[in-house]
Every structure is written in structure tokens, then in C-alpha cells.
């Protein structure tokens, strides 16, 4: 390694360790002024894993998830200058991720409904299922159950419980009203509980 390359590498490491201590919004603010690619690299390092796992969960295919993650980060790069700092960067990134995956799923499904239809409402829909009942499912079993419910229902549950999005935020992402999101959440909770009981019925006999 030549001396010049060594110095360049050393300065880059120094710069990276400085950036890694910064908050997301500080990085975005500095990026707007300098367009330093190292700043975007740190954003990528922080969020690529989360975006990738969300894509795998939604698309249920690792190759498609890799392509989706790549497209999402290119999209984020072209739009990061428009990011409004009063919002949370993580929420914005997840919003782009969900929108991308939902668009892809809609194209894949074409005429099929992405979200559970009216005919799928269980008879006991009037009974409210508490958050607690869903949140008490063991992690390994939850993964099995989430892979069995429709992607749309899974997306709504992930937005609500994994990313702490408000009903309003979910409604904006899915371009639906807040009341329809509340109903979708209710259906998704019912479906999750039903699939859980069916899959692990030995526990209930």
C-alpha cells in the first residue's frame, strides 16, 4: 500500500469514527451541505440490516429482498435531500421500505387483495383482542405465525408493534383512512391469534 493510500485510508477511518457518533438528523444536515458519500455510508450501515430483514419478512424471498434493499437505498439516496428534519429518519426509511414492498406485492398479486377481505372476518371479530395476547406469543412461534398470515396483515402488525408507528402514520403509508386501519389491525390480530391456535393447537387440547 502506497503512503498516499495509507494516509487516505487513515483519514477515512478518522472521518468515519467521527460520523458514527453523530445522530441521524445531524448526519442528514451535514450531508445536505457537503454531499460527503461517507455520511450516506454510515446511514447505510445503520439501517441496511433492518431494511433487509423487513424486506425478507414482507417478500418471503431472500433474492427479491436483496434487490429490494438495493433499490430502496438508491431511492433513499436520491431523496435524502428532501427529508424533513422534524421527522425521524428511521420512520422515513421504514415508510419507504413498506411502500416499496407493498407496491411489489400488489404487482405480484395483481387481482388478489393484499389485505384480508371482508369474507375472511372471523365470527368473533366483535370480541376485542388485546395487544397483550399478541405480544405474549413466544418469538419463535410468532415468526412461524407471521409467515402464515397474509403479507398485508403482517405489514400492518409490523408497522404497529415493531416500528411503533401511529395509526395516522400507517394510514398515510397505505393511503387509507384511520378507521380502516383500526379495522385492519383488528382483523390482523384476530387472524394472528387464529393461526397461532391452529398451528400450535396441541397447546390448547
Amino acid at each position, binding site marked *: 500500500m502506497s503512503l498516499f493510500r495509507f494516509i487516505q485510508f487513515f483519514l477515512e477511518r478518522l472521518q468515519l469514527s467521527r460520523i458514527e457518533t453523530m445522530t441521524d438528523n445531524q448526519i442528514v444536515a451535514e450531508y445536505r451541505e457537503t454531499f460527503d458519500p461517507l455520511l450516506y455510508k454510515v446511514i447505510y450501515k445503520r439501517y441496511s*440490516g433492518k431494511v433487509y430483514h423487513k424486506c425478507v419478512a414482507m417478500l418471503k424471498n431472500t433474492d427479491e429482498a436483496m434487490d429490494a434493499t438495493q433499490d430502496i437505498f438508491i431511492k433513499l439516496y436520491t431523496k435524502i435531500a428532501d427529508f424533513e428534519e422534524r421527522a425521524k429518519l428511521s420512520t422515513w426509511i421504514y415508510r419507504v421500505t413498506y411502500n416499496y414492498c407493498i407496491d411489489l406485492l400488489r404487482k405480484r398479486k395483481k387481482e388478489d387483495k393484499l389485505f384480508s377481505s371482508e369474507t375472511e372476518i372471523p365470527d368473533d371479530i366483535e370480541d376485542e383482542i388485546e395487544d397483550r395476547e399478541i405480544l405474549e406469543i413466544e418469538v419463535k412461534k410468532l415468526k412461524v405465525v407471521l409467515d402464515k398470515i397474509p403479507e398485508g396483515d403482517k405489514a400492518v402488525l409490523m408497522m404497529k408493534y415493531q416500528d411503533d408507528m401511529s395509526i395516522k402514520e400507517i394510514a398515510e403509508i397505505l393511503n387509507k383512512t384511520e378507521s380502516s386501519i383500526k379495522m385492519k389491525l383488528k382483523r390482523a390480530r384476530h387472524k394472528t391469534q387464529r393461526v397461532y391456535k391452529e398451528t400450535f393447537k396441541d397447546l390448547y387440547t
Partner: protein
Amino acid sequence: MADNNNFKQLLFQELQEMPEAPGQVENGVDGSIGFISHIGKFIELYIPKFIDAITAFLGSNDRN
């Protein structure tokens, strides 16, 4: 809502197994971003000159 519910634990476990997206994704992103920024620089550098040339060709004397 619990700060560390089972949905968050699920993501946490997945991140422990694989904290970042696979390497091919990073290479792809780097390549595309490099291409986009080169195109940007090209436009920034040559478009004003091209417009100047068109203006001169059309007979304007304005060369600010």
C-alpha cells in the same frame, strides 16, 4: 406498548444473525450511487457550457 415486545425481539434476533444486508447489496448500492453522482457532475460541468455554446451559435453576445 412494551419497549421490547416480541415483534422487536424477533427483529433483534434477526439482526444478531445478520446485522447488515448481504455484501452484494452494498456493492450494488455503491455502484449505482457512483454512477448517479458521475452523471450529476457531468451535467453540472457540461450543461452550462453546452447552453453557452447554443447561445453563441444563435448569435447572442451575452457571455456572462
